[in-house]
Structure formats: C-alpha cells, structure tokens
C-alpha cells in the first residue's frame, strides 16, 4: 500500500514587514513546513510504522529552496520525496487550484497511491481547496478536515472523523483510494531525530517537470490574478498601554479593576 503526502513550504510573515507591490519583501518572510502538513506527514509515517507494507511518499510543488523543508519530511520518516518544478511553474504568477489539481493528478497517475494526505489548508494563502480538488480530478473519494483516522486496509476503508464547527465531529467511512485533508491536533508530530536528519541529507529528491509529467505548459495559465496586497485597514480603536511592563501592567490592572475584575 502506498500513501502520498502533499508537503508545502510556506512563508510566515515577520514583525514589521513591508509590502513590495503584490508581494511581501523577502526580508520579512521565513520559510517553513506548512503547519497542517506536519500533521499529515505524521499521519502517513505512523501508518507506515504500523504496517511494513506501507510506503510513504511526499509530493511538493515548489522551487529548490523547498528542499530544506522536504528533507524535514524525509527526516521524520517519509520514504522518498518528489518535487514538481520547472521554469514554466517558476514564471507563473499564481498557481491556482485547477493547476495544482492537474499537477497532483499527474503524480497520482504515475504513483498510483491508495491514500493521499494533505493539510486542511496552507498557512500562506489559506485556500483550503487543493486536497478536495485533487480527489475530484483523480476520481478518488475524500474527506475534508479530518482529525481522527482508523484505517482498515483490508476492507479498503478509512474510518475518519471530520471536525465540524462548534465541537461537533462527523463520523464518516470513506472508500479507498481517497484523499484526506488533515487537521492539526490529529496526532503529535515528531521532531526529526539526528539520525533521521543525516539519512535525509543523503536521499535523492526526485524532481519532476511538466514535461516529465506529460503536462502542457498551458495548465499554468490562470484567469485568477492577484491585483493588490495591502495591510488591512484597521477599524480598531484599541487603546494601548505604553511604558515598560510594570507601568503597562499597572494601567491595565486599574482598568480591569474598574471593570470589576479581581474584586473579591
């Protein structure tokens, strides 16, 4: 059995960032493994640890810089890694959901996994759509926002819990092959061991181009265009308590007492 895990490197924005047109100045971006994907990786690795017949393969769409993140996935126990990238993808302004679904579909066709795990969303653009779109493109079943998984490989069924709003969980059985979008909290992602990190350094990352995947350059064309990026206009009239910690805390304490907080 094979499990494919989608792994995205995302940028987080540092304090005091500055905008540069429709991007954030690179100085203020820190690149890291997408938080949700960390849980998807852990899910895949735990499945493989429980069953020797399960291979876990990561797939990333991203530039060479992403290899550091991909090696983190390898260090945590992913068996091998695929990175999809080429000049056409690098030049695209924006990879939309349809384009990503085409790319993943081509990888799925080549790899024929039984299960695909993605994060619920990527922290950077927060589209939350890739996993489910991939399922549709590949003709797989799916479940979105999964926070518990019990795999019955023999029956070809994934018993999952979908985390709905307001503390309600939906219990669902999904037929394999399937895509599950994984929610944070489903498990406790491990830290990579030193040995894992060393082994990951030696592993080959399989770089696939559009041509390798048998895809036309036209798949990156998108009708969706990012036209502006700005800091949200704050409607707030937050009153800030300045000064050092003691002074600020003193003023906050006065306010809280006025509101009746701490009164015996």
């Amino acid at each position, binding site marked *: 059995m094979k499990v494919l895990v989608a792994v995205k490197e995302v940028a987080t924005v540092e*304090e005091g960032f500055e905008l540069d047109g429709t991007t954030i100045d690179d100085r203020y971006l820190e690149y890291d493994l997408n938080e949700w994907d960390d849980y998807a990786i852990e899910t895949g690795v735990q499945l493989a640890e429980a069953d020797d017949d399960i291979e876990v393969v990561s797939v990333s769409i991203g530039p060479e810089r992403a290899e550091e993140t991909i090696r983190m996935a390898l260090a945590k126990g992913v068996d091998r890694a695929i990175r999809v990238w080429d000049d056409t993808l690098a030049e695209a302004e924006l990879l939309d959901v349809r384009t990503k679904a085409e790319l993943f579909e081509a990888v799925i066709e080549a790899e024929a996994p039984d299960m695909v795990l993605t994060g619920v969303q990527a922290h950077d653009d927060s589209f939350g759509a890739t996993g*489910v779109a991939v399922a549709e493109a590949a003709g797989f079943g799916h479940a979105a926002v999964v926070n518990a998984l019990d795999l019955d490989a023999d029956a070809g069924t994934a018993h999952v819990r979908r985390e709905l709003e307001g503390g309600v969980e939906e219990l669902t059985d999904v037929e394999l092959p399937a895509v599950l979008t994984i929610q944070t909290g489903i498990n406790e992602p491990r830290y990579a061991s030193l040995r894992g990190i060393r082994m990951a350094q030696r592993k080959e990352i399989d770089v696939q181009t559009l041509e390798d995947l048998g895809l036309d350059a036209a798949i990156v064309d998108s009708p969706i*265009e990012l036209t502006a990026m700005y800091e949200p206009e704050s409607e707030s009239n937050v009153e800030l308590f300045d000064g050092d910690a003691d002074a600020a805390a003193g003023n906050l304490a006065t306010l809280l007492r006025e509101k009746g907080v701490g009164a015996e």
Partner: protein
Amino acid sequence: MSDVLAVIDHRRGQLRDVSYELITAGADLADAMGGTLALAVISGDVDQFAETLDRDGIDTIYTVDHGEEFNHDVYVQSIEALYDELAPTALLMPNSVNGLDYAPAIAERLGMPLVTDAIELSYDETLTVTREMYGSKVETTVTVSEEPFAVTVRGSEWAKAEGTGGATIEPFEVSVDESAMRSTVTGFEEVGGGDVDITDADVLVSVGRGIEEEENIELVERLADALGATLSSSRPIVDNGWLPKNRQVGQSGKVVTPDVYIAIGISGAVQHVAGMKGSETIVAINTDPDAPIFDIADYGIIGDLFDVVPALIAEFDE
C-alpha cells in the same frame, strides 16, 4: 443571463447563519451582474428550510429532497444537475467545514476557477474578490477573468438577509447515482464536555502559542487565579495537549461572550476570532504590533507576556 446560484448550509436540522449571509452576498452580486439569485437547498427538511429562507432578493429556491444530512457526493451531483439546467455565471458556497468538503470538488468537476474565503465581492465586467493571506496579516484582491466562476464566502462578513421575499419554491429532481458515492456518514459526536464550561465565565484569561512551552501554562493559570478568571486558550494549546478540548475558543471550539477576554500570545486568526469577538471588552497582550488581534481589541499591551503577565499578577496579589 448572469445569474447567481448560492448553496445553503445546514447541519443536523438547523440552517446555519452563513446561509442568510449567502443570500445577501448573492443578491448583491446578482444585482451587480444584472442577473437573478437562485438558492439550492440540498438534503434535510428542504420544504421547511426553503420557507424559512424566503427573504428579500431571491428569485427561485430549488429544493433537492435527498437524505437528511450533508453528504458531499450528493451535493456535488445535485449542484452539477442544477448547473446543467440553470447555467449560472456565479456559484456561491459557504466557506464552512462542509463547504470546504464539496466546493473544490464541484468547481473542479465543472472546470470553474475557484476563489475561497471571500470577505468582499464586487463585479464590474469582471469579478473582484477580497481575501486575506498570511493569517490575516494582509488583505489581497484577486480578479477572475473567466466565467462561470465559483466562490466560497467567509461567515459573518455579510449581514443576514431580512424581510419576506416572494421567491418561487421549486422541487428539483436529482437522480443521485448511489454507485458513485464513496463515503457514508455514520454518526455525529459532541466533543469538549467536561468539568469547566468556559461559556459561563465572566472573565477569561486566554492563552495562545506565544506561551511557547507546556511548563509556562502555570504562569497564566496563576494570572487566572489572581483575577478570579477562568482559563481558556487558542487551538494550538489544545492540539499540543497542554489544555483539554473544553478550553478551546474558536470556530471548532466554543463561542464565548465574557465581560472581559484577555488574549495572551494569541495572534487573532479568523477561526479564533469567530469564537470571541462577541466579548464585551477584549484585552490583548502580544509582542507583534501587526497581530490581527489588535484590530478587534479594545485595550492592548504591545509587549512580552513573560514580562507583562508576572507584573500583572503582582498587581493583583498585593
């Protein structure tokens, strides 16, 4: 024609608030596009839902009477059938957990471009969508130069539709292909019960990822004690197992409305804010002046919680 089809959200017999907001967003968009708004009500008590939903601005409400609960295969097949019949230009869906479970699939099946989590929509020859990125730190606009298109809308961004409309309610037959259904809902469970009910508290001290380590939770516990407050948290604290699920504030946790909510080391992500924005007074303590929590806070301290919290405890322990 440039019509809008909006898909209603309901769960366990209840229409969800975003359904009424979709009517407002859909009616505005239909207006701007020079078309009409139709609703799709799929599964559940569709007749009762349709009657309740009949508010201003709707042309037709199509009801698909199939099953009780949400199933994404039924939704995808029903929307596809409605689309084949009505050929709308815009497909509007909720950015709810269930919306995320079918919207990308139907957009992909129909070959439509998809933009999710819209907080504003405008239309002037082309669609412009406003949405956030990087955990609400920036806002962006995107244009969509292809029609038809699909959009999911964020909850609580549009007003709920009001009034009594005169929509035509039309049952719509969909012969659902059961053999194409790949998932079955077997039940529901409420989680997060337990000893404390954070929705009862007058004062909440709420802790986020800024606390860094499990052993530091004790610091905010001491603050809660000193203030006579109850301790709650953002999601990562619960994900890490540092506090039980019944302490989680937000979209997938509890919705709280205390007199005072003190957010400590919490950035103010939309799913967190959904659970606490109704608090009477919001206080934020955060090192990052750009943290979105300050947009909704009434009072704030830009500072390190490891300095501010001990100082605050000292103020009340004296």
